[in-house]
């Protein structure tokens, strides 16, 4: 009897497919077909509606947005994909769909035979390896990409030195990851929302944040759009759709999914790109965000910068999986691994990911492999836990900026003269930016109390008055370079 019932469901399933995607109407057809052959509910396909009790929906099923319940469709489609129709006798129904059974006890190995391969377009000498499977880039875009990578690299060097000289309190660099920064930014559109971790100022630079603005934030002066509230490198710019850098690790991930959900609800032609490092994927928020993004079918790209180190923790001590790309499948998320030192590969993968995220309304995971050439931050000395040779190798032989330079020079789009001019111009701008930022006044004390709430509450008004009164009475105890 059981065999016959299963076959009849197989037939019903076939018919359903032929009838096309009618959503719920299809399901109720299937249920009633099964009902007529088998009255007991023990083998009712609960998996089809994922355990949601139909009693509540009743006849208002058609009221629900088809988009929201596409996952039910996806489950049935995956049944079709994974379920071998000929193995009708070998299948079991479970919540979540059909599963073939086997009498062989096989543990899935903890690792695949081969690591997931890494997509790259340019070899280490900047020569094109592939001729067609990448996103073509116009000359102007390529030049902007290269010059922004150089600017980013130079900004990192100059600001790092400034911290060492005591002019900035803190800084961290993106050295080694310029291609991830700029390549990903170039792949997105200005309407896409970016929720960074903290090693992605390149995305902000690409979108038009000026060197002066970077300097103002790092020096905490009154011109800073963030009103000097955050420590250095914690940039935020609503104008550039770049949300605030936030220190606790990985909190941006579920928040990014929420932002993607809001884009989805508004039906916008845009996605969210959020960044995370290899270490950050150990946080619970990574799991919650990935899982949720898949369930919500959110238009979001998770960009993982796997640079080998989380401060002093190497990836062997961070996780035992084959990097982060293999986790995508565990959540039902399409993923790719790319060479993070290859700006063209990064751009191609993320541009394609963006198209999929928006047109198919789904999350995509992109793992970009690279190397953190710099120390974690100015509070770190990485020579204490890794070899100088290793750092040097990546700084020179695998340098993403040099590699891209070779490609654009080979195309005749860049010359030594352009290089010299660009570098000297950027250097001048950087030094000037710091000098001006240092001379600019600090924000006034009004900035202490505003923006805690939308409107200044009475208790903060009182505190501000008390503070001003105290300053009036004891001016010598108050720093002279901070305006009242």
């Amino acid at each position, binding site marked *: 009897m059981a065999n016959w019932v299963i076959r009849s469901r197989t037939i019903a399933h076939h018919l359903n497919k032929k009838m096309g995607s009618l959503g719920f109407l299809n399901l109720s057809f299937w249920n009633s077909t099964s009902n007529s052959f088998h009255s007991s509910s023990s083998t009712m396909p609960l998996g089809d509606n994922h355990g949601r009790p139909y009693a509540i929906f009743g006849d208002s099923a058609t009221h629900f947005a088809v988009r929201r319940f596409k996952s039910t469709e996806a489950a049935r489609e995956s049944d079709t994909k994974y379920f071998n129709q000929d193995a009708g006798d070998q299948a079991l129904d479970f919540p979540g769909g059909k599963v073939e059974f086997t009498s062989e006890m096989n543990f899935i190995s903890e690792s695949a035979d081969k690591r997931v391969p890494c997509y790259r377009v340019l070899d280490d000498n900047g020569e094109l390896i592939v001729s067609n499977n990448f996103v073509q880039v116009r000359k102007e875009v390529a030049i902007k990409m290269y010059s922004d990578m150089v600017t980013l690299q130079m900004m990192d060097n100059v600001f790092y030195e400034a911290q060492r000289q005591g002019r900035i309190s803190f800084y961290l660099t993106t050295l080694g990851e310029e291609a991830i920064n700029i390549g990903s930014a170039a792949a997105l559109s200005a309407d896409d929302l970016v929720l960074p971790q903290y090693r992605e100022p390149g995305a902000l630079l690409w979108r038009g944040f000026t060197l002066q603005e970077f300097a103002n934030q790092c020096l905490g002066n009154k011109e800073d759009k963030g009103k000097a509230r955050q420590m250095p490198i914690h940039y*935020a710019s609503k104008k550039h759709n770049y949300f605030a850098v936030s220190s606790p690790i990985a909190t941006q991930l579920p*928040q990014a999914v929420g932002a993607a959900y809001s884009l989805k609800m508004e039906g916008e032609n845009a996605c969210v790109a959020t960044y995370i490092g290899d270490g950050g994927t150990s946080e619970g928020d990574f799991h919650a965000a990935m899982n949720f993004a898949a369930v919500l079918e959110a238009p979001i790209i998770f960009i993982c910068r796997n640079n080998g180190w989380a401060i002093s923790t190497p990836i062997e001590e961070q996780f035992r999986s084959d990097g982060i790309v293999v986790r995508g499948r565990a959540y039902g998320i399409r993923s790719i691994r790319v060479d993070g030192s290859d700006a063209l590969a990064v751009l191609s993968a993320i541009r394609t990911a963006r198209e999929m995220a928006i047109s198919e309304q789904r999350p995509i995971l992109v793992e970009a492999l690279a190397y953190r050439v710099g120390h974690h931050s100015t509070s770190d000395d990485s020579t204490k836990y890794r070899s100088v040779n290793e750092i040097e190798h990546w700084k020179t032989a695998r340098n993403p900026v040099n590699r891209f330079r070779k490609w654009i020079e080979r195309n005749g789009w860049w010359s030594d003269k352009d290089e010299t001019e660009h570098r000297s111009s950027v250097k001048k701008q950087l030094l000037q930016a710091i000098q001006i930022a240092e001379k600019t006044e600090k924000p006034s004390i009004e900035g202490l109390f505003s923006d805690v709430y939308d409107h200044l509450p009475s208790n903060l008004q009182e505190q501000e008055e008390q503070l001003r009164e105290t300053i009036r009475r004891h001016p010598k105890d108050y720093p002279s370079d901070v305006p009242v």
Partner: protein
Amino acid sequence: MRGILRQRVGSYMTVHEALNSALDEEMSADPNVFLMGEEYLCSNLHFLYQISIGLLKKYGPGRVFDTPITEAGFTGIGIGAAYHGLKPIVEFMTFNFSMQAIDHIINSAAKMNHMSAGQISVPIVFRGPNGAIAGAGAQHSHCFAAWYASCPGLKVLAPYSSEDARGLLKAAIRDPDPVVFLENTFLYEESFPVSEEVLGSNFFLPIGKAKIEREGKDVTITAFSRMVGYALKAAEILEKEGISAEVINLRSIRPLDRATINASVRKTSRLVTVEDGFPQHGVGSEICTSVIEESFSSLDAPVERITGADVPVPYNEDLERKSLPQVEDIVRAARRTCNCLA
């Protein structure tokens, strides 16, 4: 199964209906408002209070959605959606579980507007039952009013009556700042009189204003949430003994209405604070300090705090009762302040 509340003519409304109607009206008025929480699709479990009942059917799963079990996850998602301009109302099954999301609430929601210099606001509401439930043990009975109220950037509300529930929830949803909205299980089924004005769809209460539930002249008793009911009962008992107690329903824990509290103490000269949360660094501590700072010369007796015992709330009914404030505790405290006349 109750459906969505239809307008009552005059009389009474439970807090449950008050909250449900407030959610319904705000969702109807603003398409950016949406609800998220656990167990929204299945409303059969008896311990789930179904405050959102009927809303899924009316607004669809795009605006009322059931989340996977991850407080950190869905709180983060709510905050991200709020960054981009939606207005999420995030329900915690109980505020005890909000501890799993505390980083998102404190480090992101509370601080983002300030850190981003006003560029990124977080118009989100976190709501759910808070405090003791009766026979639910330590991890389901903790009161978080003082925890959340200590954090700048948040607003913290604690309604008592149905009028409070409607007015404060509507205000919270409309407020551009993140609001922690602390409900109470016992109060959900309590019925309160509501006027026509309270039933109006544009009714809301100002955040930061306490309400004088009962006027008096001998002692000020401050309370919030369920304890307001206890304080009112205590006031009736005290009345018979010739002590006229003024009962203040705080309504808003942050911002705290220090003006109303101090004006009352300057009138009565005596203060008793009541809460069922833990004593150390509690809401009462803040109120006592405010009164000492601003109305010291008016005090005729030391200030008194009535709080829950400084222990995780026990499960056993009798022990639990002994660990939480009862009406008699409030009465005795008020008497003590009055007997301290010089």
